[in-house]
């Protein structure tokens, strides 16, 4: 387009673009690179090593790869992602959106409304709601289970991973559900109608018509929620990573080593590992978006 540069001079472009790019460069891009360097030092939060840290090479990474707590955090993060994001949010979101698509009507508003409320309320508040819900002595869950013969359980203490997994399914399913719902709306109704006329059951219609049509969206959804779930800090507000590190996902491990044990350098090396994982998913996302555009 020859006329595309005609409104704005080079100076104007620079003046308009500059402030935003500088802010992003300083507070978003620079930290991502600086963390690579910090991870190679013994930078501390306080004391001498806070002012004049020294270069220690790969020592921090060596420590991490020999630290049982690091593997513990990695393992719990994996369980958390597979349990709450894949089996939880994505699957439940898909099932809900397909059922709502089949049923239609005002029931959709009620279900979406409840799910979206769980998703939109600030994290500190939902964490407190779940602390109350799961409380051993007063919590609503134990009160509901009591008539069924279940004795009181201290959920956050006895089953911390299960608790944060269920919490996160509750918290995040709305996103996948809304995404799939809007994808389903784009399927031409005639596809499904003709299958129905030909006598295909709901399951046949789902696997042979609906699923192939929303495959790309399903992939996008999985990439995004995996990335987000790996990086969610809310379980800290529920369990603090405990009891005795049993629900310590990677983000809480980074916080504990850096800000509770003051080892910023070590925390940086673990952050680097998380950033590399994130970069992988970000590139996957980019690739999926590109492919969607070109198809």
């Amino acid at each position, binding site marked *: 387009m020859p006329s595309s540069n005609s409104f704005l001079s080079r100076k104007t472009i620079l003046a308009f673009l500059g402030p935003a790019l500088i802010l992003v460069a300083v507070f978003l891009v620079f930290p991502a690179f600086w963390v690579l360097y910090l991870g190679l030092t013994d930078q501390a939060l306080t004391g001498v090593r806070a002012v004049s840290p020294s270069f220690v090479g790969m020592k921090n990474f060596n420590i991490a790869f020999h630290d049982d707590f690091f593997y513990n955090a990695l393992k719990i993060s994996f369980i958390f992602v597979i349990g709450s994001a894949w089996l939880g949010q994505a699957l439940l979101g898909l099932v809900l959106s397909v059922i709502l698509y089949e049923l239609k009507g005002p029931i959709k508003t009620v279900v979406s409304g409840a799910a979206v409320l769980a998703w939109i309320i600030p994290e500190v508040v939902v964490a407190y709601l779940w602390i109350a819900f799961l409380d051993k002595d007063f919590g609503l869950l134990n009160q509901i289970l009591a008539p069924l013969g279940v004795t009181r359980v201290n959920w956050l203490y006895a089953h911390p991973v299960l608790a944060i997994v269920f919490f996160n399914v509750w918290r995040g399913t709305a996103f996948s559900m809304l995404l799939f719902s809007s994808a389903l709306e784009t399927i031409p109704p005639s596809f499904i109608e003709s299958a129905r006329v030909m006598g295909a059951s709901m399951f046949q219609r789902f696997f042979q018509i609906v699923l192939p049509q929303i495959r790309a969206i399903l992939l996008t959804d999985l990439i995004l929620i995996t990335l987000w779930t790996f990086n969610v800090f809310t379980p800290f507000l529920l369990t603090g990573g405990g009891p005795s590190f049993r629900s310590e996902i990677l983000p809480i491990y980074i916080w504990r080593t850096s800000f509770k044990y003051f080892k910023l350098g070590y925390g940086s090396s673990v952050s680097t590992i*998380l950033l590399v994982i994130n970069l992988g998913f970000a590139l996957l996302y980019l690739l999926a978006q590109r492919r969607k555009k070109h198809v």
Partner: protein
Amino acid sequence: MSKAARIVLVLFLALVTIWFALPLLWLIVTPFSKAPSLGISLTAPTLHNFAEVMKARSALLAFKNSVIISAGSVVLVVLLASLASYALSRSNFAGKELIITMLLIFSSMVTGVAAMVPIYALCQKLRLIDSLLGVVLVFSAGFLPTAIFILKDFIDRVPRAYEEAALVDGSKGTDLFGRIVFPLIGPGAAVVAVLCFVNIWSNFLVPFILIRSNSKIPSSVAIYQFFTEVGIPRIGLISAYSLLYALPVLVVYFWVSRKYGFGFFGGLKG
């Protein structure tokens, strides 16, 4: 669909909906309860707990800090993002695609969790620890890429004919943005402002890491401190305060979903 299958599906939906609603019940009941506990205790409603909040200076101060942080970030993000996305939309310089790709990669990769350590260290170097400005700058930088993508989409759809006409009338290039384009992208700016506000108002980690003194913490950190403080947690106060703190987000949410439908939030929050 057979009748039986329909009944099974509706039953399943009902159970899931109840599951979503149960934990929320506490937030509706307890703030108005005379005997607030972690359980659901239905009593004659009272506003006593809200009166407690009004007496708690630290709670009110935290609310004010939340307003300052959110308002500051929203203004900064909308202003800088609309300028930047206008420049990106109406030009074709070398490296433009690279900038857009880099923004996309870094904004999804550099999360608050992954960057909490370097962001803390950076703010320490810049003397921005325990400063509301520091929190505003970190939030704004984090949200700018998303805001730019949304606004660029809006500006791309504004026909250039308006600007061309204004140029013929003798307007300068820099005037085009303020006089013509910005008023036209009002809905886009509103979308960005809403998303930015909801995310920043709710965020816990960034101020938790960057703010030291009790007089500067926002509501998210204040609520966390209320229930981790030693002694008996003041459940009445916490529940009422939590409801007040969640209210702006709920109001914005109801307003937006009435106007645009639930789908609005899909794909944008994160």
